[in-house]
C-alpha cells in the first residue's frame, strides 16, 4: 500500500464541498502522518466538521480527493483500522438500546456484517477504557451527556484502530472526564495511534498535540505548531479549561493576525 511509502494516513488534496449556495470547503489540503496527533482548530462554521465528514465518507466532496491509509475513501479503505467519533450525535432511533449494543456496532466495518468471535470481551474492554465498564447494560438515552460522549469514543476504540478521527470529543464534558479522556489518549498514542481531532480549544489534550491545522472560512490558514491562545484570554469573565501556555511567543503576532483565538 502506498501509505507505507508516504507514511501519510490521512490525505486531502484540493477538497471543495458545497451544500446548496454555501461553499463550505474551499480547497483544503491536509496530510496526517503516522504517529502524529493533529488538532483541527477554527471558529464555528469554518468547516472543521465538514472536512472530517468528507474524510470518512459521510460527505462526498464536490471536488478534490480524500485518502485514508493510502486508499481513496470508499470500499478500498481498510476500515478495521479507522475509528470515527462523531460530534455528539442526535442519532439513536425510536428504540432504546444499551451502551453495550451501541459499542458492539463499532465492531462492524467494511464487509464485516456480523460480530466477530469474542465480541463481548472486546466491548467490555472498550467500555473499561472510557471508565464505563459497569454501564454496558444501561440504556444509552438514560446516561448523562458526558457518558454518552464516552460511549461514542468506546464505539470507535472497540475495533482497535490505528487511526482515530474525533469531532469535538470533549465539548461539554466536565474537567474530570476530560482528564480521564486525555490519559486514555496518551496511552493509545504511546502505543502508536495516529489522531486527527477537531477541537474548539486544546484543553487537556494540549500536551499530546504535535501539530495544529487551523481552518478559516473553508481554507487552511495555519499548519504547524499549536497556536497560542489570544492574549485577551485572561479577560474578566473568560472561563477556560486549559493551562496557560509558556512564554514561547514565536507564533504570537502571526496567530493574532490570523485571529487564531479559541473562544470559549
Amino acid at each position, binding site marked *: 500500500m502506498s501509505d507505507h511509502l508516504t507514511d501519510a494516513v490521512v490525505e486531502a488534496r484540493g477538497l471543495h464541498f458545497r451544500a446548496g449556495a454555501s461553499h463550505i470547503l474551499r480547497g483544503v489540503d491536509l496530510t496526517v502522518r503516522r504517529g502524529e496527533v493533529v488538532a483541527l482548530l477554527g471558529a464555528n462554521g469554518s468547516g472543521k466538521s465538514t472536512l472530517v*465528514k468528507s474524510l*470518512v*465518507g*459521510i460527505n462526498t466532496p464536490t471536488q478534490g480527493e480524500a485518502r485514508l491509509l493510502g486508499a481513496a475513501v*470508499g*470500499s478500498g*479503505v481498510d*476500515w478495521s483500522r*479507522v475509528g*470515527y467519533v*462523531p460530534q455528539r*450525535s442526535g*442519532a*439513536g*432511533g*425510536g*428504540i*432504546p*438500546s*444499551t451502551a453495550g*449494543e*451501541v459499542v*458492539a*456496532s*463499532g*465492531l*462492524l*466495518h*467494511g*464487509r464485516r*456484517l*456480523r*460480530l466477530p468471535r469474542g465480541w463481548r470481551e472486546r466491548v467490555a474492554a472498550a467500555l473499561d477504557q472510557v471508565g464505563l465498564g459497569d454501564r454496558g*447494560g444501561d*440504556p444509552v438515552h*438514560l*446516561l*448523562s451527556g458526558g*457518558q454518552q460522549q464516552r460511549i461514542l469514543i468506546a*464505539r470507535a476504540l472497540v475495533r482497535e484502530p490505528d487511526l482515530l478521527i474525533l469531532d469535538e470529543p470533549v465539548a461539554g464534558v*466536565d*474537567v*474530570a472526564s476530560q482528564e480521564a479522556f486525555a490519559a486514555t489518549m496518551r496511552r493509545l498514542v504511546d502505543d502508536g495511534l495516529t489522531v486527527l481531532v477537531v477541537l474548539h480549544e486544546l484543553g487537556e489534550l494540549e500536551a499530546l498535540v504535535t501539530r495544529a491545522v487551523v481552518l478559516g472560512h473553508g481554507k487552511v490558514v495555519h499548519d504547524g505548531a499549536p497556536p497560542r491562545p489570544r492574549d485577551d484570554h485572561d479577560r474578566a469573565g473568560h472561563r477556560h479549561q486549559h493551562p496557560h501556555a509558556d512564554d514561547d511567543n514565536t507564533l504570537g503576532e502571526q496567530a493574532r493576525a490570523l485571529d487564531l483565538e479559541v473562544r470559549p
Partner: protein
Amino acid sequence: MITLMLTDPFMQRALLAALLVGVTAPVVGTYLVQRKLSLLGDGIGHVALTGVALGWLVGVGAGLTPNDALAVPGAVVAAVVGSVLIEVVRRRGRTSGDLALAIMFYGGIAGGVLLIGIAGGSAGNLMQYLFGSISTVSDADLWLTVVLSAVVLAVGVGLRHALFSVSHDEEFAVASGLPVWALNVVVAVVSALTVTVAMRVVGLLLVSALMIVPVAVAQQVTHAFGRTMLTASVVGVVVCVSGLTITYWNNVSPGATIVVLAIAVYAVVSLVAPLLTRGRPAHDPHPDLPDDVDLPAAASERAAAAAKECR
C-alpha cells in the same frame, strides 16, 4: 374442543400462517420503529394492492384457475419494487420524499381498484386482501408463507447487528465503510416480503399494525434493542395465535381481532409497566464525581472546617 380445532386442516394451515406472521412481522417492525418509519408498512401495503390486481389480470389473461392464482406473487413483486422505490426516494431527500411517498400510497390503491376492474373483477374481490382471509389459505399459499418467513427471519435475525448499526446511526455506519445503501435496501425488501406474508392473515390495511404494535408493547418493558425484538416477537405470536383461536368459535374477522387484541395488550402493559418500575430505587448516575463548580456554600463550609481545625 382444542383437539377439534387442531385437527381441522383449515385451522392447521391458518394457525401455522398466524404463527409465522406473529414471529416475523415484529422482527421487521423493530427496524422500522428504530428508523422512525413506522408507517412504511402501510405504504408498502397500498402498493401491494396494485400487485394483487396485476397478478389477477395476468392470471385471467393466461386463463388460470382460480383467477387469483397469481395474486400473491403479484403482491410480492409490487411490494418489493415499491419498497425499493421508497428507499430511493428517501435517499434523495426528505422534503420531496414525503410527497412522493404519499403519491405512491394513493397510486397503489387507485391502481389496484382500476386494474381489478379491467380484469373483470370488482373492488369487492380486493376485500379479502385488504382485510385478510386466513381461512382460505391454500397449501400453495402456506408454502409461500413458510419460504418468505424463513427468508425474512434469516435476514432480520442473522444480520441484526449490521441492520442495527445502520438504523441506529447511519452516518457512523457510512464512516465504518459498511454497505449502507445495500443494507437499507435489504430492510426495505424484507419489509415488503413481510407485508405480503402477513397479507393473508390480517389484510393489507392492518399489516402495519402487526409490525408496529408488538414493538410498542415491548418498548414499555425493555430498554435494549435485542430484547425489544425478542419480546415483540413473543407478543406477536401470542396475539396472532390467540386472536385466531377466538375466531374459530366466534364469527368475527381474524385480522381485526388480532389487531384489537394487540392494542388491548399495549393498553394493559402501559398501565401496568409504571407500577413494575416504581419499586426500583432511584440512583445518582455519578456518585463518585466531584462537582465542577465551586459553590459559595461549600467554600464557607470548608472555611468553617478549617477554623475548627485551627482551634
